[in-house]
């Protein structure tokens, strides 16, 4: 059947068939007509205003990008477009704490030929480019924006590609608008990771740690001398200006946090060590191996974003006999030893999956970050975390209000309350249910009908690869 469709090229028929079942279609194929007004009423829905705050059969009113009211028995304004949601479930828009969706990769700066003096590379080669502003690199039509929006993500903190200090991040809406209009909060954080430079200094974690300490101290000294100079310029030499050092000033003043990628246990330990030595405010994001550092992270006052990426689940050996035969030459016998090892591996996989529950149990608030997760894995991974003991409320909090709080935006984002920005996720089943699909997403009061969940799409792609 499928093949017939493809071969005959009956795309129109297919679209028509699907249109009968769903309003949605392939977003890129259909021109969305502008709404008549910026007023919406979502009625007869189950509203999760925030974690633990459920309203059955409620209504949400939206006007000019803001939520104007949430509750039962509300009067619906005449200009409102009504979305009837008998069996719909409504959540605050999700927030991704660290991402590169919608960010253009700069040109590869690493030259093929070796550096003349690897000890003194340019800032670009060294990866010390904190002066780069991710706002200059935003691409509103980046495909992953659409994918993550279809999962319910409405806002993300995005950062530039690059080295150990790639540049400043920004908090953006995932509304596919013009670059500048995406930005909610510019210079939201000074982004850093333990990324070594290729063939030049800092080529290892040794150099990265030293560079951090040196630049920070240099910046502190330059900053204070600059203010001396600014107060009275006569009789003393003018301070040097340096884009790198100046980028540290808001960090030193604690106006801008350092957003540090810290996947592994040791990464996090090193981040906290730098924090305690230098004193900056920190957000640790993309945490994968943090279960032993919950207390430490909390004591350090760090904001926490846990990775949505998880190690793959152990799959039952589904190899065909033919494949097995091919492997025979290389396989280790199924031994007691192997089983013991498999158990240790499984135990650790469980720790990764149970990390979010462990943070929650310790009452340490956290958000999520999607830097390394494939969009198709987001919902399955959330479900795995829930299965491992994370309450749905806690998962929702992490996706919404906790992330908003960590980013200092909880006055505007994170819950469905009157006065907040209308970032809303509407799902046709409770979000964490096995077969839930996001139907609509509102960002700043603008409605998006989402395409089929990415997981289905990729499955389809896979199947279509076979002859």
């Amino acid at each position, binding site marked *: 059947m499928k093949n017939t469709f493809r071969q005959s090229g009956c795309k129109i028929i297919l679209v028509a068939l699907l249109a009968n079942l769903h309003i949605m279609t392939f977003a890129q194929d259909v021109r969305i007509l502008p709404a008549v007004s910026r007023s919406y009423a979502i009625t007869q829905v189950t509203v999760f205003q925030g974690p633990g705050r459920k309203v059955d059969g409620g209504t949400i009113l939206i006007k000019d990008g803001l939520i104007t009211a949430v509750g039962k028995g509300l009067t619906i304004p005449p200009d409102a477009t009504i979305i009837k949601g008998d069996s719909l479930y409504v959540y605050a828009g999700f927030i991704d704490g660290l991402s590169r969706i919608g960010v253009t990769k700069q040109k590869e700066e690493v030259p093929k030929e070796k550096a003349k003096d690897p000890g003194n590379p340019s800032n670009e080669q060294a990866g010390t480019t904190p002066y780069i502003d991710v706002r200059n690199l935003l691409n509103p039509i980046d495909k992953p924006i659409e994918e993550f929006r279809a999962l319910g993500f409405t806002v993300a903190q995005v950062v530039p590609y690059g080295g150990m200090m790639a540049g400043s991040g920004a908090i953006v809406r995932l509304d596919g608008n013009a670059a500048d209009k995406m930005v909610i909060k510019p210079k939201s954080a000074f982004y850093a990771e333990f990324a070594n430079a290729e063939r030049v200094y800092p080529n290892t974690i040794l150099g990265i740690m030293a560079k951090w300490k040196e630049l920070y101290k240099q910046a502190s000294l330059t900053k204070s001398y600059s203010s001396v100079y600014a107060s009275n310029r006569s009789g003393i030499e003018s301070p040097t200006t340096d884009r790198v050092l100046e980028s540290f000033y808001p960090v030193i003043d604690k106006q801008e946090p350092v957003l540090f990628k810290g996947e592994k246990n040791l990464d996090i330990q090193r981040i906290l060590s730098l924090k305690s030595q230098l004193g900056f405010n920190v957000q640790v994001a993309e945490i994968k191996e943090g279960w032993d550092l919950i207390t430490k992270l909390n004591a350090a006052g760090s904001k926490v974003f846990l990775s949505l990426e998880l190690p793959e689940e152990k799959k039952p050996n589904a190899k065909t006999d033919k494949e097995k035969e091919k492997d025979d*030459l*290389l396989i*280790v016998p199924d031994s007691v030893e192997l089983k013991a090892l498999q158990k240790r591996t499984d135990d650790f996989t469980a720790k990764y999956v149970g990390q979010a529950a462990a943070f929650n149990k310790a009452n340490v608030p956290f958000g999520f970050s999607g830097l390394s997760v494939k969009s198709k894995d987001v919902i399955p991974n959330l479900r795995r975390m829930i299965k491992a003991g994370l309450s749905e409320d806690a998962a929702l909090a992490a996706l919404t209000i906790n992330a908003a709080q960590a980013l200092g935006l909880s006055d505007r984002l994170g819950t469905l309350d009157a006065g907040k920005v209308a970032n809303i996720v509407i799902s046709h089943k409770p979000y964490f249910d096995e077969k839930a699909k996001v139907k609509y997403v509102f960002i700043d009061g603008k409605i998006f009908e989402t395409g089929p969940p990415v997981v289905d799409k990729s499955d389809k792609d896979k199947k279509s690869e076979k002859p």
Partner: protein
Amino acid sequence: MNSIRIFTAILLAVACLQVKAQSPKGKKGTFALTNASIQTVTKGVIQQGTVIIADGKITAVGTGITIPSGAEVIDCAGKWIYPGMIDGGTNLGMSEVGSDPRTRDFNEIGDVIPQLKALSVVNPNSVLIPVARVSGVTTVLAAPEGDLIPGTAALINLHGYTPDQMFAGFEGIVLIFPNTGRKGFFDRRTPEEVKKGVEKTVQKLNETWDLAVQYHKLDSATKSPAYYPEMQALLPVIRGERTLLVEANTSKDILAALKWIKDKKVKKVLLTGVAEGWRVAADIAKANIPVITGPVLAVPTRDYDRYDKAYANAGLMKKAGVTVAIRSNATEHVRNLPYNAAFAAAYGLGKEDALKAVTIVPAQLFGVADKLGSIEVGKSATLFVSDGDPFETKTNILNVFIDGWEIPMVTRQTELYKEFLKREPGLTK
């Protein structure tokens, strides 16, 4: 007797004078090593015994032995006599300064080059050789390294001025079995890449073997096939006349090698390396293929393995019924062969089997047990005298004989000691 001693003393004095100008020479003659505890290896320990060396051979072993006239008597009261130790795998003689490729002659370009011969490149004058032999290691396998079939290894005695004078009667072709293990910290291949690489190499190996089998048929039929050095070198292996030394270390590779050996019906074969042999010891025992394992002084091949697995490996294999010889797999560290054996002994192999693993067992595996590996009449006089158990760290080796030649106990290292223990001038000139 007395006059002989005086004469010897004069000779020695002359020899000492010559030391200034050149290294002392070995000495051949008739020797009587008396009053010794003799570790024959094959026939127990003889107390207060005598070993007579004449014409390069052991001519008598035991108690109450008449000392031939003219024999130089070495009183070994309180001393021990052992057969020279045999290192079943080294690069000794083939490499001088490890980091300098100009002094490395064990790794030629090419993946199937069995015709290249280690014996041709053994440097009899390597400074490393005396250092090895004064520790009691008298015989080593000098083996090429590299890709799939890097050449032909040779067993050499560590005395002589030409490779032929050193040759100890065994040559074998090295096969580095396709390796699924990581080569070092720099090896960052993904598991898939490793697997692909192995599959490719296995294919090359099978193609090579098939060619050799075909060549053998052709050769048997026509007796004069065209010049094909690789195949000519492999011919004796196909015919079971020459040993194939199959290097395999991870358990997967060992099993794969065993299967391959069985499939190809390889007749004369040894496993070498065998770092994870303990993991598949029963399979090795069942296949009845002896191993030359080492280095013993190594860290486990996997992070989750018990910390002492490399030390225990030889003992665990032996316990499973595998015939085990031990190698150092070293070049300048061949002198530490006894310590490799001793660690294996301490961690389960036992002293007796550890001693055999560096004497009679490798001699048997290399087909030279008629000459080497034990103190027996008729064997080559390749042995040493020590002041104790040669595995013990502080034991001194006092005399070494190779093919009946008394070896000078002098190396560059001992000469530097003599010169610098009390340097002159000291602080002021």
